């Protein structure tokens, strides 16, 4: 008996070619990530000299080396200490605002609002809000708070508020998904025992959903930490180290952005170092989030 060949060579070829195309496309999709990580590591590590993490950016000038002219004086533009502290504080405050608020809204959506018209509208617009350009959050806070000089001009906490607005829809969405995963049988059992709804929420739903909520929040925080645009006009252009959110502050993303604009190698090097630091922080948050979610009962 000879081989059975009802599928023409053309069809077979198309099948193989298309499968190859899809595979190659996937490889292509992986290339940028590899490149970014490569450059981040190679240029970023090179930039981390002594004093990188322990000194603040200063206002030194750096002159580019013009060929033929005498070499410029060595410049020490400082490190990124104030930027790191600034990011930690700003994102920290944004988290304190956005996470509880977001979980509260998600709770209302799953426990009280459910499929009511208002809840559906809110859900729809929360989704839409995730697509708002982040610069709009900055403009919003700028107009309402900075221009009106409420509590000073551009200061740390106003930037944190803008970042919180950005994080809010993300927290709401992921929290709602997690809360929906809590089995209704748990809720019903508690309600059947005569427990009022608010106690069911605090004693049953929240603890069960806890790890998932933490995971979602960590991911939102990782997003918030990387945002530049909301901070551009709201935190002020500070370089000095300050722990006071009521003062103009520095942050990693804005520091990178401003260094990039200088386009002299010393500043660009610092930008790479700061970028590596920022990405490391974000990846760390992502890893922790994944570790928690893996151990969660619901995920």
């Amino acid at each position: 008996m000879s081989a059975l060949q009802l599928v023409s060579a053309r069809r077979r070829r198309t099948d193989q070619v298309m499968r190859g195309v899809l595979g190659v496309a996937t490889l292509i999709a992986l290339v940028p990530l590899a490149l970014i990580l490569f450059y981040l590591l190679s240029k970023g590590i090179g930039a981390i000299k002594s004093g990188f993490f322990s000194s603040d950016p200063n206002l030194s000038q750096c002159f580019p080396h013009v060929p033929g002219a005498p070499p410029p004086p060595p410049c020490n533009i400082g490190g990124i200490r104030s930027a790191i502290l600034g990011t930690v504080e700003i994102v920290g405050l944004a988290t304190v605002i956005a996470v509880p608020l977001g979980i509260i809204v998600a709770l209302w959506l799953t426990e009280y609002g459910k499929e009511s018209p208002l809840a559906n509208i809110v859900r729809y617009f929360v989704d839409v809000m995730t697509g708002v350009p982040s610069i709009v959050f900055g403009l919003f806070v700028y107009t309402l708070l900075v221009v009106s000089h409420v509590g000073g001009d551009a200061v740390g906490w106003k930037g944190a508020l803008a970042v919180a607005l950005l994080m809010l829809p993300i927290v709401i969405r992921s929290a709602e998904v997690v809360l929906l995963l809590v089995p209704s049988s748990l809720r019903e059992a508690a309600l059947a025992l005569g427990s009022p709804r608010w106690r069911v929420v605090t004693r049953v739903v929240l603890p069960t959903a806890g790890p998932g909520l933490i995971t979602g929040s960590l991911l939102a925080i990782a997003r918030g930490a990387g945002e530049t645009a909301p901070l551009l006009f709201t935190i002020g252009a500070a370089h000095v180290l300050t722990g006071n959110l009521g003062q103009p502050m520095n942050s990693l993303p804005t520091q990178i952005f401003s260094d990039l604009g200088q386009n002299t190698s010393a500043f660009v090097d610092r930008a790479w170092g700061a970028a590596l630091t920022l990405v490391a922080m974000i990846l760390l948050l992502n890893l922790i989030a994944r570790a928690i979610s893996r151990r969660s009962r619901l995920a």
Partner: protein
Amino acid sequence: MEAHATTVVSGGRSVLDRSPLGRLPDQVLKFGLAGVAAGVLVLLAGFLAVLISESSSAFGNIGVFHFLFRNNWDTSQLQQGAACATGSHCTFGAWPMVVGTLATSAIALIIGVPIAVATALFLTELCPRRARGPLSIVVDLLAAVPSVVYGLWGFIVLAPKLRGVQQWLANTFSFLPFWGGQVAGPSYFLAGLVLAIMILPIVSAISREVIATVPPENKEAALALGATRWEMIRMAVIPYARPGITGGAMLGLGRAVGETIAVAYVIGGSTTLGHSIFQQGQSLAGVIALQFGEAQSTPLYKSTLFAAGLILFVITLLVNLVARRYVVRAGRGKRVGGGDAAPGIAEAEPEPSPA
């Protein structure tokens, strides 16, 4: 016969009544939470209100139509507020930036969506099971990179390295419209390329979710008819997934339109309209980011930047509103405790807002 009285506890109240005080936390919670939730709607309205009010001066003096379609971002005209206030000698317009935003987003879609969908098809239909999880995570990792790092990498690494490639492309296909010219490095094309990379994780993640909803019985039916694997994908998967993938692409578009920081330098920062996609330009979001500082002192100037922001906001709002009708969120419409909402959605948060 003894009537069964309701059980009475101390104080003469039945356990079946909860005291008004006992009901209070629930009522407070219910209305309080509802208020906070409705606050989301108030916020969005607030964004719109602020943008409209701050841009009213620019639109009022320059006119919406002229603002959008005049090709002359000559900010010196704005310094002498009078000229544009009376509207007589004002030729100011943001058309270069409008084109910049639209062109870079279009390029991002053309390059990014096919690759994202191809990746999604590969990962769901062809990839060996073991590799699927890790590879998906790696593709999604692109979303974790902050926009400013994309801007840094794009401007410092990609622009010089791709200059030769861009020049070759510009020369080889120069018969095409909006093609050709001298390439400096940053360009509309390069910004579109960087944006394509940035929207890849969103479009791929949504496409993956959508493709996973294709009924397996349809795929079986195709295979049982004697279809090859690719033919099965073409027959049973793609037609079914097309609406959802379209929605995902629109969300990618929204992201690309609003992206500020990554584009600001990579596009070249030139406020005159380029003739070819390989020349430099600027986007609406980029111009806000880069010129806001110097615009502080001139109210009309500042207002034009807010006007740019308003245009951006409206475009992304519309795009998102439409896209959301196609992309049914996993978990939406499932009853509480359904447990069959796709797990790991919190991990694969695929729609970051543009920076």
